[in-house]
């Protein structure tokens, strides 16, 4: 997994990847509430292939680097993790190698929050967005931008097969300052 330095921007090398994406129970996928767009694409391999839950279809860019995937939400959301599915064995020179994740209110004030470098990845790559500070477990933002800065073997265009964005699950019981953990509380806290 990526190593993190204590500074804000850091570089870490990630090798390999998981075949199955294992996500914590208290995370839920937030991508459905967002508008997804890409900087460029080849006809037939557009942005919908990024969100179709099908690992055989992929997005192929068709322009100059860096290639961008923009995820825009209607209201500020807390995000904790981004997961990418890329495969060196299938995509070779199209496989992204350097990825930068930026967040902000819109295109005008995006700020880089994470950089990772992939080395021959094959499978799901989870990228955590948390900082070291416990106050920075989540990134509270309107927009997320995933930028592919360079590819393996110096390829020009990139293939990404799937992207998922995760944030914390809402407290199922409104108006509580903290979520409940014990069975007694949870059993009594709702009527089904």
């Amino acid at each position, binding site marked *: 997994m990526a190593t993190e330095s204590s500074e804000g921007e850091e570089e870490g090398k990630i090798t390999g990847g998981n075949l199955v994406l294992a996500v*914590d*129970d*208290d*995370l839920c996928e937030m991508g459905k509430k967002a508008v997804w767009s890409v900087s460029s694409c080849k006809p037939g391999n557009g942005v919908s292939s990024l969100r179709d839950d099908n690992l055989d279809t992929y997005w192929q860019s068709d322009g100059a680097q860096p290639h961008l995937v923009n995820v825009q939400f209607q209201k500020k959301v*807390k995000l*904790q993790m981004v997961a990418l599915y890329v495969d060196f064995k299938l995509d070779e020179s199209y496989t992204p190698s350097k990825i930068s994740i930026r967040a902000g209110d819109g295109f005008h004030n995006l700020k880089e929050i994470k950089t990772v470098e992939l080395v021959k990845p094959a499978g799901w790559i989870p990228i955590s967005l948390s900082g070291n*500070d*416990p*106050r920075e*477990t*989540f990134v509270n933002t309107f927009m997320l931008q995933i930028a592919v800065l360079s590819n393996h073997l110096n390829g020009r265009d990139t293939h990404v097969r799937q992207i998922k964005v995760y944030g*914390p*699950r*809402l*407290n*199922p019981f*409104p*108006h*509580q*300052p*903290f*979520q*409940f*953990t*014990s*069975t*007694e*509380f*949870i*059993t*009594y*806290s*709702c*009527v*089904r």
Partner: protein
Amino acid sequence: MEAILVDCVQSSLRHFMYRNAIFMCERLCAEFPSEVNLQLLAGCYLQNNKAYCAYHILKGTQMPQSRYLFAISCFQMDLLKEAESALCSANEPGAEVPNGAAGHYLLGLIYRYTDRKKGAILHFKQALSIDPLLWAAYEELCSLGSAEEAAAVFGEAAAVSIHKQYLPNGFPPQNADMSSEDHNVISARRSMDDVSSRQLKQMLGNNARDVAGSYHGTTASSQSSGQPLNGGSSQLSLYNTPSPVATQSLQLSGAAPPPPCRNMHPNGPNLSALGADSSPRSTVNSTIQAPRRKFVDEGKLRKISGRLFSDSGPRRSTRLAGDAATNATTNVTSVAGNGASNSSKHLGSLKPSSAALRAVTVRKGQSWASENSDEGVRNEVTDDSRFNPTLANCSCPSGDNRTFDQEGASMPVAGPVLTIARVLTGTAEVLGLLRLFGEAYRLSCMYRCQDALDIYSRLPHRHYNTGWVLSQVGKAYFELVDYMEADQAFNLARRASPYSLEGMDIYSTVLYHLKEDMKLSYLAQELIATDRLASQSWCAMGNCYSLQKDHETALKNFQRVVQLDSKFAYAHTLCGHEYVSLEDFENGIKSYQTALRVDARHYNAWYGLGMVYLRQEKYEFSEHHFHMALEINPCSSVIMSYLGTALHALKRSEKALMMMEKAILADRKNPLPMYQKANILISLEKLDEALEVLEELKEYAPRESSVYALMGKIYKSRNMHAQAMLHFGLALDLKPSATDVATIKAEIEKLHVPDEVEDCL
């Protein structure tokens, strides 16, 4: 030739050979077109679940029995307006509703589903007054929230009217349908009230009488009173009176003494067969068991003829076998659609029994009664058949319905002596049982669950250990939020009747609350294997997925339930819950409102709406909805605590605190109201009191991280840093969710700031 054809049709129906029956009947109608034959054909179709066929052939007919059958087909096809106009045409407001109690019951259902609650209540009450053993009508009244006390409904007046049914001519030993409970089925015939006794002799005696007289005397005249057919007799009588009905009933009876029955059936043609009856009588005596079965069959057959309780029958699985039995007898009498009003009554009663059987573990073969009594309508037959299998499963004490055929002769039950004494004791027994059940059911519908449980525990063991009662007990525990007990009760219910799906949706919710995912998935798989088209199976499946937090699949499953049965309010509520978990509030609100349209007393839907508005911060709406939920179910501490939260959000904190106190008192085991109380006190700046409450709460739920976190916050605002640190630490140890970890750690950091400043310096 007509008689032969009629006979053939009825025998086919009795044996459930529907294709044969339909073909023969169509030939009959082509050869001898008459309305009575049309009724027989309609009955065949309805038994075969082809309501649309019956609808078309009966359109425009005027005879009361035809109108009744037509109404049933319309109801099944969901054409409620036509059904209603068939039963009580607008042109003749004073006309009598065909089939008495059964007709009123059907009208009540129609009114209920077209949102005319008052009219529905009126009709159900009418039905009950005509036929006090019509348990299904009482059930509907309970679920509409306006049932009178069981003691009143199943009291003196009821006894009197049952006596009249069984002793129409005063004291002739008519078939007392009063087969209390068990005998209900046959009861029509058997004035034996010894339900328990199921005495063959009675049957024997009754048979003769039943056939002839039981059916309210009138039938007696039609039939040779001497008919020995026990089970059959009752049926016979039913059948005899109206010839078409009779024939139908014969089919139902399939009972052993078919010949006698058949003879009996056509009033005209086979009276000679009566003689044959005597023989069955002797046979009856020999096999008590056999007769029972026959009775059951008869009941079923009967049912078919008159009642066409096709929907009510199967639906009312809860027609306790026991109750049904009693009802059956009454129902039968009410059935009297065709001509012989008496007979129908018997049928009616039988029907309920069959229904009961179906529903619950057959309680002692009462089912037969229900089945038997059913109107000669063939429809009943189908019901019966349904019951029969159930009966078969349940160890019916008395033979199964399945042995319809045997019934006539074998069931001496109805047959034997319908003495007045028997009638009286029988009525008393049946009504006594119904009183218990009725009161318990009424209380559980009013959500006075503890009282309901007390009454259920007073039931005799043989009734208590049946699927229906056990699942009602489970439901009562569920409402009391005592999920462990509910789990146990439902488990026993599953073991008592593994084929019964009634109440299994609540069981799946109980397992959901207990977070038993293995048990829940096992239950769901079993239910689906039992019946893929039942709404409860898919509810269980949906709950299974919801427990694993796969809300989308859960939603799909619940939508399937809605497709299968749009009148199932709980399915809509569960859909609503899933939409809310997916944060799709608009659809959630729509689902909850649909649930409320189906059943305005479904407090879960009111609660769901309250929660949605709470989340959307529309506190006024939220408070109103929680209030409505609380009115329906005044004992639920969960609803009280949420109502308090809504009041607090509306800044009515005094009332909010009072509500919390009420909730704490209502259920000591519920930790939530105390926690909410502490929250409110904190926002009112009464930190000490809040701390006290939280300390108390710690005793109840020592492993709840949010309690420690909240205490930590209080200590922090009091600047008692050491305590705060301690509590935050404890909270973190108990593994809260990621968001909370972040919040708590942030709080800790803030605590440390003064120290850090010192360190840096």
